């Protein structure tokens, strides 16, 4: 294995140390041919755009645009037509109205940490990045909501309500860098979603700008918005239905305390069975995270969290409550785990230890990225299949002569096998891609899905037919047409490029 000290792509974002950009394989996914008419008018378009936003809000120069050429799936790069950094909903509306009138494609962007190429620009598209819209508009502890502009980072929301003892629950590992906008785009999850749900379960209201510039408000500080659940459709729609500018989210009172425990096992399969046993016993810990040996070793070297480096598999299980409740619950969980001959069973003894344990987990991608290029998978499987699927994953990677490190949200069956490979070796990159596809197909045939939280983007676009029939896809594409009849918003993503016409005609 070649050791690479690797650097964050110059993608124009303040990237946290632990949200470094992995290299995806150089995959031959087709991207649509840019619209030459639009390309030829670039200069004039940039001039027009400058009139629509405050000074400094449009990036038109080559170098500036290049900073936005990719997201965290860095194998794909496209320098956009221009980049807009609006500071208000009105500006977003003006930009979209202009693009709509002139048939210019638009790619919405938060922090550009998407792992599926969701924020990848196109050469004929305007990138609208909401990263300057970061204001907290209101905190309402009585009603347990916060209203924010969506360019705020995920962690920024929790930080804004921390003084009042509250937090925002969904916690992607990239939370230091990623924005609420991107979380809404991808319906992102995190380690603590086992108990608190993912983004869609925590958003109460949205301000959305449609492609023609119309601004609509959905929901508010109340539960269950009126009429059709349009909010449910928008969350997870990968920037294809409109651009979200503000959101009202549910905030929760922080628990009295929380404490993780580490349980090491001699095989991944046993760890999987232990997870089923815990949940089967009626206990829902706030998080159950899994790492296999390669992941344990790399993360331990990085975070010095006290992970058992000789274990084949590790579970990080966290529970919440008062000191006594935590002790009781960890005791019960320890008892269940005891039936699976754990090699290590260790409860965090201090806030520092807990922080180190989570640092190791949340920086896992970054830590692995330091030693190798990797390709991150994101399938979900039924929990009961965990053991068998893990065996099959290692067989697939063996067959292709590749190493794999497994890190995932075990409680809800969301797998992140990281296929390690050398990006400079084209043949190896191709094998990594092939292995990835086989793993995702395995997830689907095991009763699961292609992506649990990272989204389809361009990465899984051409695999959609593994999971869906043409009728299933048509039902989804018609919704795109309802919101964006000209298909100008992030059009190269989510749906296979062929077969769109029929769905459109039918709409």
């Amino acid at each position, binding site marked *: 294995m070649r050791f690479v000290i690797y650097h964050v792509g110059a993608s124009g974002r303040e990237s946290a140390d632990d949200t470094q950009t992995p290299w995806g394989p150089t995959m031959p996914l087709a991207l649509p041919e840019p619209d030459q008419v639009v390309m030829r008018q670039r200069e004039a378009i940039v001039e027009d755009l400058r009139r629509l936003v405050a000074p400094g809000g449009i990036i038109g120069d080559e170098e500036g645009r290049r900073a936005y050429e990719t997201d965290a799936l860095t194998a794909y790069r496209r320098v956009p037509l221009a980049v807009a950094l609006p500071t208000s909903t009105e500006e977003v509306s003006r930009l979209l109205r202009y693009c709509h009138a002139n048939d210019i494609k638009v790619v919405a962007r938060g922090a550009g940490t998407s792992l599926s190429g969701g924020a990848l620009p196109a050469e004929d598209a305007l990138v609208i990045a909401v990263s300057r819209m970061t204001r907290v508009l209101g905190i309402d502890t009585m*009603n347990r909501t916060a209203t924010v502009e969506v360019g705020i980072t995920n962690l920024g929301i929790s930080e804004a309500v921390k003084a009042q003892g509250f937090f925002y629950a969904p916690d992607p590992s990239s939370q230091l860098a990623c924005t609420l906008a991107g979380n809404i785009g991808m319906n992102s999850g995190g380690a603590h979603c086992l108990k608190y749900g993912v983004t*869609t379960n925590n958003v109460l209201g949205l301000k959305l700008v449609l492609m023609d510039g119309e601004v609509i408000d959905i929901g508010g500080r109340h539960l269950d918005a009126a009429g059709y659940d349009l909010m449910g459709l928008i969350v997870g729609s990968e920037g294809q239905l409109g651009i979200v500018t503000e959101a009202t989210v549910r905030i929760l009172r922080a628990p009295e305390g929380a404490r993780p425990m580490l349980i090491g096992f001699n095989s991944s399969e046993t760890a999987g069975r232990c997870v089923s046993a815990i949940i089967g016993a009626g206990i829902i810990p706030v998080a159950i995270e899994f790492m296999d040996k390669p992941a344990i070793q790399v993360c331990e070297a990085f975070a010095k969290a006290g992970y058992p480096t000789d274990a084949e598999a590790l579970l990080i299980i966290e529970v919440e409550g008062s000191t006594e409740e935590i002790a009781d619950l960890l005791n019960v969980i320890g008892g269940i785990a005891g039936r699976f001959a754990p090699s290590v069973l260790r409860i965090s003894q201090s806030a520092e230890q807990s922080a180190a344990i989570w640092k190791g987990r949340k920086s896992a991608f970054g830590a692995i990225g330091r030693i190798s290029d990797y390709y991150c998978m994101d399938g979900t499987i039924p929990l009961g299949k965990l053991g068998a699927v893990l065996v099959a994953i290692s067989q697939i990677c063996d067959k292709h002569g590749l190493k794999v490190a497994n890190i995932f949200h075990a409680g809800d069956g969301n797998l992140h096998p990281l296929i390690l490979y050398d990006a400079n070796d084209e043949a190896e990159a191709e094998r990594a891609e092939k292995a990835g596809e086989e793993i995702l197909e395995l997830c689907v045939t095991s009763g*699961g899905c292609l992506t649990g939280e990272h989204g389809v983007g361009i990465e899984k676009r051409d695999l*959609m037919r593994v999971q869906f029939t043409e009728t299933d896809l048509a039902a989804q594409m018609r919704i795109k047409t309802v919101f964006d009849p000209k298909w100008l918003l992030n059009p190269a993503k989510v749906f296979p490029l062929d077969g769109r016409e029929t769905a459109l005609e039918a709409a």
Partner: protein
Amino acid sequence: MSVLSNMRPVDEREFARVLAEAAATGTPLEISGGGSKQSIGRPMQTSATVSAKAMRGITLYEPSEMVMSARAGTSLSQIESDLADHGQMLAFEPAELGPLMGGEPGQATIGGVFATNFSGARRVSIGAARDHLLGVRAINGRGEIFKSGGRVMKNVTGYDLCRGLSGSWGTLAVLSEVTFKVLPMPEDTATLVLLGLPDEFAVEALCSAMSSPFEVSGAVHLQAALAARLEHAGLSSQGKAVTALRVENFTKSVRYRTDRIKNLLKAYGDIHELDRDNSLLVWGELRRLSVLRGGEGPVWRISTAPAAGPKVVAAISAYMDCRAFYDWSGGLVWIEVLATTDAGAADVRRVIATHGGHTTLIHAAPEVRAAVEVFQPLEPGLERLSRKLKAAFDPAGILNPGRMYPGF
């Protein structure tokens, strides 16, 4: 149209054929499940009723994965009893509207539960029906069978039609099979009760308990007139408003947490406690909305920010005689008003417009429901999108046309 009347296709394919034919002939259909919520919505002009009730059966249940799948016509009571056999439950406590609508209890189907997205008391802490839906199979108004989601807990593959179809009242597609998340029943339950609080204080107490770290799983307030209708004699005989908070957990935690909440709320007056058995009785009764039963008057269901609940009720009370049952720590208000030609719609809607939220006229005579908007009127932008969404799923307009909104 007699051939079409009152059909009960036994499977998805047969249902799809019926819908395809109706689409081809432009025949508007009333889509029903168990019929427990049949009289909610605007009265429709349809040629026939097609019921999902014959598509029955639990198709998957994995207790250790907390997941169940069932055909849409499976009765809620069967699902809940199978779950109870394994110590599990539908955590969102689907509201039982049958009795309120003048029907029998236990008629609801699981498809209807998700198609209406009416959740009970635990919604405030654990989410709504829509939050527990993992996968659907459905038939659109073109007679096409499609699926979305799946059986796993996390899934962002493609657009989220599970949410999209939740609460669409059979106007976009007919659910044929649903897969949903289930949760373990708590080991223990206790209820803390405060008596005689005015609405404003009651909701303040509920909200401060909800803002504590003690995971309150139910927070309701009944005005005295409605509390008097509780079947639980210990509570109804007090002649006072009842404010109740539920804590569910392992027994030791229930003890600890109720003590802490008592301490937190001591300024609001004496706090009484109901044990597990009494708690189950009272919360079961609340779920059946029995305090609204028997009233002949129209019933509105209002969703607003919790702290706005009492203000909404006070404002409505200025226009008409009304009685309120607050759930979701004040954010869901059921109000019973006197029967008038418009059920007070103009005033109720004006109040909601001021305070934010939305409201549905749940119970009223057909001529009233025909004369006023039953569901919350939508802002023009939302209304346009909703109309287009309806047309995308059901271009011929055959599925429950006009049930939610006039014209689509």
